[in-house]
């Protein structure tokens, strides 16, 4: 056929490439090899080479076909169509899907599952519960024959006492490990629902190992069992750098089984010191309180005494003042009294004098009156001359001849006619 075409007429380059692609690109083939030169362009176009001991072939894919980024050195199986890329004339496989083989497969599966669980919220920090500071009952899920178990128990005994550690022995690797572990969590949840003597915390622990060894701790069912545990879970796996999916789901992630015990059991010595401090604080507080009350009472008493003393002192002062002033007042009163008495006596005397004087005057006037009285005159021999009408004759010229007058003498009257 080719010879026929060759003899018939020459092809353009484009036609030639199209022809070749038609010949080879009619079905998908699976090719296995090692990845090298892996690169992504513009976030969309993936380029890498696939090689074995002797040969190499270029591969091209869109990112969605690859799914997970590949690493150089990974062993993969690709499905794709071979062909020439017209623009460069280079032969390559256009890859439609990739499967990672061996260790890489586990790694990829792990990463994919991790992404899935994270998006479902199994790793969410907000839902992680705290474990109580002082636990009474711990449930250990792991292999009773492992170093993880002995390490955990040893650290627990060193740090603390009085705790019940229930041990649920499980296989931690191998086919049935995942279901064993899930069974242990179901058992624990059942205890929780029964209500009696349920653990305060669960420890899921094992030693370190390869990615294959740790498979059960990366199992989706186990991760979901840890997430669905009604009791908080502490996960402590092998060595610090080992990282499993249950580490992310756990309420508390410990770096090792020993560290898990450290996170769960308090340090006896530290707590003893705290208790010591409490004791000291209580004593100190009580002493201070008593001292304060005593001081308060003493000062209150003092203030009270002072106060009462003041009152008494003031009262005394008043008394003294009164006692001093009183006699003076009395003296003054007495003096005034005396003054008044004297004054009154004085007045009396004056009045008496005045009365005496008046009496004397009256007496004198009386005497004078008597002397001057007509009777006194008569007695002395004088006479009173009166007209008939009684009017006194005081002058000789007042009478006329023949007028009848009377002359009153000491011892009687004489009727007279004037000559």
């Amino acid at each position, binding site marked *: 056929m080719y010879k026929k075409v060759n003899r018939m007429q020459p092809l353009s380059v484009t036609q030639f490439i199209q022809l070749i692609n038609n010949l080879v690109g009619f079905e998908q083939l699976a090719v296995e090899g090692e990845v090298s030169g892996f690169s992504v362009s513009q976030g969309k176009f993936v380029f890498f080479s696939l090689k074995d001991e002797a040969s190499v072939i270029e591969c091209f894919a869109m990112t969605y076909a690859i799914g997970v980024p590949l690493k150089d050195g990974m062993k993969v199986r690709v499905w794709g169509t071979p062909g020439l890329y017209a623009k460069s004339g280079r032969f390559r496989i256009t890859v439609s899907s990739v499967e990672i083989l061996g260790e890489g497969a586990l790694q990829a599966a792990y990463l994919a599952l991790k992404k899935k669980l994270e998006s479902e919220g199994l790793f969410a920090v907000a839902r992680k519960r705290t474990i109580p500071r002082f636990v*009474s009952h711990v449930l250990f899920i792991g292999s009773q024959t492992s170093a993880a178990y002995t390490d955990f128990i040893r650290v627990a005994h060193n740090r603390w006492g009085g705790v019940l550690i229930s041990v649920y022995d499980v296989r931690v690797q191998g086919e049935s490990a995942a279901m064993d572990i899930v069974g242990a969590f179901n058992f624990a949840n059942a205890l929780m629902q029964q209500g009696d003597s349920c653990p305060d915390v669960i420890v899921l622990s094992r030693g370190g190992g390869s990615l294959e060894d740790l498979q059960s701790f990366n199992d989706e069912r186990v991760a979901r069992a840890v997430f669905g545990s009604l009791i908080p879970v502490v996960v402590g796996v092998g060595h610090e750098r080992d990282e499993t999916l249950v580490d992310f789901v756990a309420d508390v992630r410990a770096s090792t089984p020993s560290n898990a015990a450290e996170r769960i059991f308090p340090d006896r010595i530290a707590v003893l010191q705290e*208790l010591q401090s409490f004791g000291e604080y209580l004593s100190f507080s009580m002493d201070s309180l008593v001292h304060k009350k005593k001081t308060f009472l003493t000062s209150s008493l003092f203030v009270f005494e002072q106060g009462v003393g003041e009152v008494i002192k003031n009262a005394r002062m008043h008394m003294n003042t009164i006692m001093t002033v009183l006699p003076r007042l009395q003296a003054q009163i007495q003096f005034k009294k005396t003054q008044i008495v004297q004054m009154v006596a004085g007045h009396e005397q004056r009045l008496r004098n005045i009365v005496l004087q008046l009496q004397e005057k009256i007496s004198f006037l009386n005497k004078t009156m008597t002397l001057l009285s007509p009777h006194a005159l008569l007695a002395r021999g004088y006479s009173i001359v009166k007209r008939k009408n009684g009017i006194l004759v005081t002058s000789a010229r007042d009478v006329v001849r023949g007028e009848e007058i009377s002359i009153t003498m000491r011892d009687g009257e004489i009727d007279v006619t004037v000559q």
Partner: protein
Amino acid sequence: MAKKETFGEKYERLEQLSHYFEKGDLDIDEALTKFEEGVGLVKELQKHLDSVENKIADIKQKLQDV
């Protein structure tokens, strides 16, 4: 197991009593009662730490027995 007060519960009670003394003006009688309770708790908890061991129970064994 839960009938007696646990270490944690007693410790919390001790913290409460401690807070009580942070207040300024306290009644002496009440304070004395709380002081005695507190000191009693301290002694109890100290004793617990000095003497008590952890106890290990094998679940599978228990389940098998049942």
